[in-house]
């Protein structure tokens, strides 16, 4: 009987704590530094440590024009909160953007590689800005803390007998809460798009492409960005429904050329960095969605050639060379496919063709870092 009372007490006390709601009045307004005695101040302190690392991170993209373009876009979307937000573009090969309660925003190059225009990028940034304005990270932090505390004490009270049930209930409850925030961020992001005159089509398009990538990869685990988000099919449907309710500009902005102008100088490097992780099926979808590059008219064929070469499937050499040749036919001044053909043919009987391509590569790129070793190959070929 005594044990039963202890058990009951152990259950009721944490329930009382667990059900406590967040007192919205003590949450600082977005951008305002919270009082040092609050939970929020603790979260800020952690984020400031991460931000100090971000400032000097070796992964930062140093292109000033690109950084300035994304900062301006964030500012346009954030409106009155513009001065609160600091953007860090990081060279990380995965689809993701994050926003911390202290105003630190991370934009990963894997996201920039995948979105096709400014409206699509604005969709993701608007979503993150809504998280910031609505203080979602703080609310999640407190919610998770409360629920985990409740789980721990209930579990102790039950002597560990109900662990699986309690754990499922706790995780389910935390995830449901997170998904509600994601839905709210989707709606808020869409509203920002509408207010700033962007095409609302960009929003579902982003998720449609990510779903295709996910399906192609046949992985059980979704991308980082999607792991805490509602089912993408549900999200696409919701975004389409919500978009119909919102006012759209008669000439909605898509911003494809402005976007590409800033992205194209880096795009192939980001693609090749990500390709080296060998997620070939996803990268095929990414490649299909890349726009034609007026900078290097044959770039898409070059990247396809690289994809085939790295996959190393049957007859990959012939197939890759065909793609490189198409790239050269479209842009005879791009040295990259010339080098690629030369190297693939180096140890075949097509020595003449290998030599011609490598020589032309060096003539187009006289300051090539690998000039010395390419010259040694040419000497070896002796044709």
């Amino acid at each position, binding site marked *: 009987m005594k044990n039963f009372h202890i058990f009951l007490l152990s259950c009721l006390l944490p329930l009382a704590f667990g059900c406590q709601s967040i007192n919205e009045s003590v949450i600082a307004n977005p951008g305002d530094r919270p009082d040092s005695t609050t939970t929020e101040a603790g979260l800020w302190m952690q984020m400031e440590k991460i931000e100090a690392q971000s400032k000097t*991170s*070796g992964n930062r993209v140093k292109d000033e024009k690109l950084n300035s373009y994304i900062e301006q876009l964030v500012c346009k979307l954030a409106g009155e909160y513009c001065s609160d937000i600091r953007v860090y573009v990081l060279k990380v090969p995965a689809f993701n953007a994050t926003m911390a309660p202290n105003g630190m925003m991370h934009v990963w190059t894997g996201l920039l590689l995948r979105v096709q225009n400014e409206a699509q990028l604005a969709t993701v940034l608007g979503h993150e800005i809504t998280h910031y304005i609505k203080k979602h990270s703080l609310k999640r932090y407190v919610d998770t803390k409360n629920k985990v505390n409740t789980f721990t004490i209930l579990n102790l009270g039950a002597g560990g007998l109900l662990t699986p049930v309690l754990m499922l209930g706790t995780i389910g409850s935390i995830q449901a809460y997170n998904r509600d925030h994601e839905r709210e961020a989707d709606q808020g992001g869409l509203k920002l798009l509408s207010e700033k005159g962007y095409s609302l089509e960009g929003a579902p398009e982003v998720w449609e492409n990510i779903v295709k990538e996910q399906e192609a990869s046949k992985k059980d685990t979704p991308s980082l960005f999607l792991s805490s988000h509602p089912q993408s099919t549900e999200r696409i449907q919701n975004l389409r429904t919500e978009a119909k309710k919102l006012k759209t500009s008669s000439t909605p902005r898509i911003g494809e050329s402005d976007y590409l102008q800033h992205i194209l100088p880096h795009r192939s490097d980001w693609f090749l960095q990500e390709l080296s992780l*060998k997620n070939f099926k996803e990268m095929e979808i990414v490649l299909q969605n890349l726009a034609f590059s007026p900078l290097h008219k044959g770039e898409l064929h070059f990247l396809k050639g690289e994809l085939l070469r790295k996959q190393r499937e049957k007859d990959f050499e012939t197939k890759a060379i065909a793609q490189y040749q198409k790239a050269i036919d479209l842009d005879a001044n791009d040295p990259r496919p010339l080098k690629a053909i030369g*190297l693939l043919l180096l140890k075949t009987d097509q020595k003449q063709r290998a030599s011609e391509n490598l020589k032309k590569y060096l003539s187009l790129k006289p300051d090539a870092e690998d000039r010395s070793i390419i010259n040694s190959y040419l000497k070896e070929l002796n044709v």
Partner: protein
Amino acid sequence: MKLSKQFIYLFIVAFLTGCGPSFTLVKDERINISKRYSVQPGMDWSQLKRESVTYWTADGLMLDEIVFLESIQDGKTFFGDEKSNPFKSNMSEIEIAELFIESLKINGQWSNGKYKELKLQKFGSFDGFNFGISLVNKDGLAYKGLASGAIIEKELHIIFFLATEFHYYDKFKNNFLAIVSSIQKT
């Protein structure tokens, strides 16, 4: 009761020490790295061996490391994993350097990386190559390194040095170069 407490402490200590990697001391005496070559360490190093990969470090693996990849056979991967593409003995030096960086990225916590300044250079008395390494880990910390290698009787041998770009690369770069210059055929 006292005895059983002591026993529990001993058990915990033994358990914890057993969980960690076991390093051994390498003294500055000529040492055979594989059946093909030996090197002069030049100073004392802490050594960790994992199958055909040998690590030497002075201040800790996260800060500086010299790694010996021994006798990688045709069709095998650099680090024994299944995801990386395998080494082929007919690969050019450029393909080897490219595969090396890819294998590091697949097997480590690297978000970006590249090789640079690839050149042909003797590896002891063997025809070989060397190149520079530039890597950034997932926390954004930049690393620099150097690698030297050779294909000897269809097997690839590589020694590489990797350290944080700030401080540790400069601290141990010359030690690595001295080790590479000391390579002797066995």
